[in-house]
């Protein structure tokens, strides 16, 4: 056993505990500095993790540290750091102008930080899961933490409603998943992905085994909000506190994808090879559903909820392609998506934190109130819509390329490419709607007071903008990272 491999996870869990304990002796008005402490600690962990990391397995192969795991661990650390910045702003009563919304968080803020850190540790374990038991435990660690994070604003009905919805549907999908794991184990006697891969060939005709796999995928489909398990996403995105929504959109979705990749391409590659058509259909419907439902939305967070469903569909293009270039495209797209979505949510968090409504119209006049925030939101929308030179364009380009590469084997891939194209065109409508309401809103904005930004908020925004441009304009480093990372899948 090689316990040093999990030093990062130990560090993160330890940090979460320290944050909980710090609550005892930290005066309430200084608690937002806990977030900066946590950010600093995560930053140190990220930097120490940047070099060449030891690879190998621990706990009898349950835990694997390989290229893919390292890629996603860095991804989750960056996401958590940006989300912590955002939550420090969200909860800060000094800037909140009466903090009607942030009130609850202001009182229990260190728990909020530590829950984010615990969710992060779940994601880190998910990145390394190489065993169905480990998969289930890490998923539960993420999901249970998110139940609390979602309903953290106890005073707001929508937050509680979102928490309850997430809890019920999440518990349901966990039940499906654990049932599926039981069926897989019952038929094959294996839980480890690599061992399963060596015997799965004998079970491709076994209906009970296939049912088990499908049930596991149901649970993962819930995490990534793919059709037909996407029902929860808009409500939860709308109701949850904004930093939670952001972490849900980026961290939780990416965790779902890394597990999906491991299950499909490491544990049961022989079965997956026959599933091109169902994957194509799910991907296509997810894209269309997310984009079409986003069109009439007025609430900004709900709109991003639907758009995140659509983006899950785009990411599934890479899964459906069943190729290494498709998997690399997923990793690349996710890294662009990380900066884009966190940039958008940071703006929402800063602009709307003292408003009850989160309508798109609340952005009216933002270019006069804060040009920096207006620019960030515009760039994020442009990147989500996949317009050059932002990160989203090259990501979509890679995904489409991966799909079209397979076109010769199955004409369904061409249909999928055209579906994605239709989705992109539809999405232009609502993304431009957001930009239009920032710069050229019809109804005169009620409030034109400038928005003051704290130093850390500016840092967050600068990181997000730099990330969007860097990944869009210099794709080479990220692409080679992604390409090396996915080599781990085909062991």
């Amino acid at each position, binding site marked *: 056993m090689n316990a040093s491999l999990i030093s990062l996870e130990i560090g993160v869990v330890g940090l979460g505990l320290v944050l909980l304990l710090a609550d005892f002796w930290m005066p309430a008005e200084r608690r937002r500095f806990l977030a900066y402490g946590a950010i600093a600690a995560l930053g140190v962990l990220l930097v120490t993790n940047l070099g060449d990391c030891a690879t190998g397995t621990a706990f009898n192969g349950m835990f694997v540290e390989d290229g893919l795991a390292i890629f996603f661990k860095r991804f989750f650390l960056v996401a958590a750091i940006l989300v912590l910045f955002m939550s420090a702003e969200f909860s800060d009563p000094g800037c909140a102008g009466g903090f009607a919304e942030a009130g609850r968080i202001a009182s229990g803020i260190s728990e909020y930080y530590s829950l984010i850190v615990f969710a992060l540790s779940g994601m880190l374990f998910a990145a390394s899961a190489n065993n169905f038991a480990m998969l289930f435990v890490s998923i539960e660690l993420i999901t249970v933490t998110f139940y609390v994070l979602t309903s953290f604003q106890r005073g707001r009905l929508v937050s509680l409603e979102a928490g309850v919805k997430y809890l019920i549907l999440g518990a349901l999908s966990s039940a499906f998943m654990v049932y599926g794991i039981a069926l897989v184990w019952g038929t094959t006697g294996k839980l480890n992905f690599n061992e399963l891969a060596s015997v799965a060939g004998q079970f491709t005709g076994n209906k009970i085994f296939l049912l088990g796999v499908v049930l596991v995928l149901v649970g993962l489909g819930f995490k990534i909000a793919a059709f037909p398990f996407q029902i929860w996403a808009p409500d939860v995105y709308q109701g949850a506190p904004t930093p939670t929504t952001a972490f849900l959109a980026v961290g939780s979705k990416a965790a779902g994808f890394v597990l999906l990749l491991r299950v499909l391409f490491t544990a049961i590659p022989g079965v997956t090879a026959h599933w091109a058509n169902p994957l194509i259909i799910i991907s296509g419907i997810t894209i269309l559903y997310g984009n079409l439902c986003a069109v009439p939305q007025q609430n900004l967070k709900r709109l991003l909820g639907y758009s995140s469903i659509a983006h899950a569909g785009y990411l599934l293009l890479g899964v459906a392609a069943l190729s290494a270039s498709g998997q690399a495209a997923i990793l690349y797209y996710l890294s662009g998506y990380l900066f884009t979505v966190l940039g958008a949510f940071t703006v929402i968090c800063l602009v709307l934190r003292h408003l009850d409504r989160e309508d798109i119209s609340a952005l009216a006049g933002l270019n006069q109130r804060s040009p920096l925030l207006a*620019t960030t939101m515009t760039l994020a929308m442009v990147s989500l819509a996949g317009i*050059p030179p932002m990160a989203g364009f090259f990501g979509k*380009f890679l995904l489409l*390329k991966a799909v*079209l590469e397979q076109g010769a084997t199955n004409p369904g891939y061409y249909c999928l490419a055209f579906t994605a*194209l239709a989705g992109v065109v539809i999405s232009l409508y609502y993304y*431009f709607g957001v*930009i239009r309401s920032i710069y050229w809103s019809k109804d005169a904005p009620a409030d034109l007071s400038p928005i003051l930004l704290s130093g850390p908020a500016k840092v967050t925004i600068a990181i997000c903008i730099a990330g969007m441009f860097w990944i869009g304009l210099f794709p*080479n480093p990220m692409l080679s990272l992604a390409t090396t990372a996915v080599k781990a899948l085909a062991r």
Partner: protein
Amino acid sequence: MSILTYIFGWPLLAALVLVLVPRNYRVIIRAVALLATFVPMVLAIKMFCQFVPNMIGYQFEQQIPWVESLGISYHVGVDGLNVGLILMGAIVAFAAACCAWEIKEREKEFYILLLVMSGGILGAFASLDLFFFYFLHELALVPTFIMIGVWGRGERKNYATFQITLYLSIGALIALIGLIALYVQSGANTFDIPKLTEYVQAHPLAAHSQNFIFPLLLFGFGILVSLWPFHTWAPLGYGSAPSPTAMLHAGVLKKFGLYGLIRIALPLMPQAAQHWMQILAWLCLGNILYVGWVAMRQRNLNRLIGNSSVAHMGFVFLGIASLNLIGVTGAVVIMIAHGFLASLTFGLSGYIYRQTGTLEMGELGGLARKLPFIGTALLMAALAGCGLPGFANFVGEVTVFFGAWKAFPLVTGLALWGALMIGALYMLRAMRNVLHGPMPEKWSGIPDAAHVWRKLPYALLLASLLIFGCFPRLLTEKIMPDAEKIVNLAAPTKAAYKMVVQVDFSEIRNPKSEIRN
């Protein structure tokens, strides 16, 4: 650094600089925009003069690897096909920046978008890499939508924005799928156009892939160029666009699709091209006859110009469809000539709209008396649009007809009728309504283009039309050797046509190619 990088890099860089300039420094913003389009224009003229015709390979080349694993590199260079287009694009971009004085609100954003649009499209024409070719065009396309949506005019502005966004995004994305499919199916693992062309020459694409990819490119690019029946976005879109946007889009951006067809679709997929060109020839009649007819019925000057610009695209398609040296050369000449012409007419109609607040031809009349300069320029533009000798359009159209006659005699006959009769009819009728006849009392006070600065863009565009109309050899001697390469790749059997036609039409005769034959 290649001169091409500077030509399209300056506007993009200036756009970034303008982001940092406070919005109330209006003079500085305008000066930066003018300078950032003037310098590329001078550079483009310099490049055009330095260009050596009939050289093997590309000139002013520069290549920097960007994503090695996918074979994407930043690769710019010119040959005869795009050297004239870049010159035209740079001149039009400067003229459009000059005409942007009519924008009075949110100037900063307008100039930023205008510069992004100019830089993007010049870069797309200079690019020899499929990825950047598309990437830079998309960069130029998106500002168009925003500019029409925000600074557009007329009651149907929102509808027009919606329609043009939908049409052009779909067209661009269909072309993107076609380009990616081309990359994937060729197996060359490179986006570099020269390398790809070489590879495909040695390992031709399978017939079924050609038949799948070619229509994607034809209709994807076709939508961008307003190929009938996908043209309906154009008249309304141009009618609603602010004039600098209409100038740049109708003049330059629209030629992207045509250039893509000539540069990529024809040489890489010759078999499919042979087959689809029969269909394209008939579709282009839709542009020439049907849209010409529609133009006759227009009451709004801008709609009429929009329709006529769609109709002119039909001649280019006819030249491409003929798949022989004369036709393709003529097509490129029309692309350049029409770029000047379309931006000139949209610029002039923009001036009239600015002064009168309307472009309904029923309300206008007799303006030539009050607007001697603008009126004369508009009349000359209209004559150029009818294909009067002395203007560059005549050279292109007549060349296309010579080229197309051999391939499609019936289509050419009908198209000629459209060019001579319909074109002259609607153009001259519009000029009579706008410039001559009784002048309504309310227009008695409107001023002509007052000083040199106001006249400059129109004078520049008119001069370009006349120079290339009187000395077409400046263009054709550059275009022909490279058009010949394309035609040889696309339709080896048809290359023989050129001898006969060259004797007929001594103006564009090229001694070097005669010797080779």
